[in-house]
């Protein structure tokens, strides 16, 4: 009996400690907001549907536009813009990060911030330039686990009415070209 009480005390004290730590966290879980799954579930089937094969480029999964729009609206993934600073300043996916060149002093800090997200989605201007693939490879080489490439490009995102914002990135302010 005493042992069961000890177990209950550990469970209760742990849960209470969790609430305290959550309150102290810079990004606390919102306790009264339901949290829904956000990951790509390639194996979970809905009745009557064929499982869709996960397409890959350079070993990175492709994220369909519709899924990316939903993820953008729920702020559940980080977007990385692989285009030039000027194109980024003219318009980009809200909260997208404009990744600075390799070796830039802020590179490590930016990649570390991206590491807080389960999934990172990279996009470019399309046209087969392979910028998104290159940046995705670079992020994966820095240890980011789930790096995906947006299906289509920025132009298609805009054409589909995806959310957008404009303005230069903090690092590129005044240097956009």
């Amino acid at each position, binding site marked *: 009996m005493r*042992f069961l009480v*000890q*177990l209950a*005390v*550990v*469970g209760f*004290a*742990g*849960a*209470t*400690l*969790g*609430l*305290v*730590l*959550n309150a*102290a*966290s*810079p*990004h*606390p*879980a*919102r*306790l*009264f*907001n*339901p*949290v*829904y*799954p*956000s*990951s*790509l*579930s*390639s*194996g*979970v089937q809905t009745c009557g549907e064929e*499982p869709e094969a*996960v397409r890959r480029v350079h070993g990175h*999964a492709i994220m369909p536009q519709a899924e990316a729009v939903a993820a953008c609206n729920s702020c*559940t993934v980080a977007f990385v813009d692989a285009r030039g600073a000027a194109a980024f300043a003219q318009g980009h996916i809200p909260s997208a990060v404009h990744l600075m060149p390799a070796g830039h002093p802020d590179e490590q800090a930016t990649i570390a911030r991206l*590491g*807080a*997200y*389960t*999934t990172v989605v990279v996009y470019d201007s399309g046209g087969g330039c392979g910028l998104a693939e290159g940046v995705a490879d670079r992020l994966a080489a820095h240890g*980011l*686990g*789930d790096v995906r490439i947006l299906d289509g490009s920025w132009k298609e995102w805009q054409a589909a009415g995806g959310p957008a914002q404009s303005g230069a990135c903090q690092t590129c302010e005044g240097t956009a070209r």
Partner: protein
Amino acid sequence: MKPAEKNLVLLFVRVVLGAVFFYAALAKIPNMELFAEETANYRLLPAAWIPFFAVSLAGVEILAGAMLVAGVLVRPATIVTAGLLVAFIIALSQALLRGINLSCGCFGGAELASWQTVGRDLVMLAACGTLLKWGHGTWRLRNKAPYSGA
């Protein structure tokens, strides 16, 4: 194995196990929102339960880990840890068998769930079994301090 050596091994197992749990929980604290989302991705619990469950889970992990390291109420802490590990193994296995592509949420980073993650949990579960069967080791190098004489 001599009692003193056995004690040292058990002490090592307990402290390492506790430190892993303590660190795993500590790494989640800076972004509990993300951890709640990672918990939801296992698709095992209703969405409304997820935040409370995730927060409680991190708290229990950190407390059990600290108790194991400090040697306080070691048996209940070991059983709680073993229970958590069994739950993790079941959750990970069902996700992998269902083909859910997710971050395991183990150490607050972006580590993808894999069968290696399940294997790591099984090793830690075996460590819990060792502590429950053979004792938890104490902060001493010998069972009895020999009198060295004048």
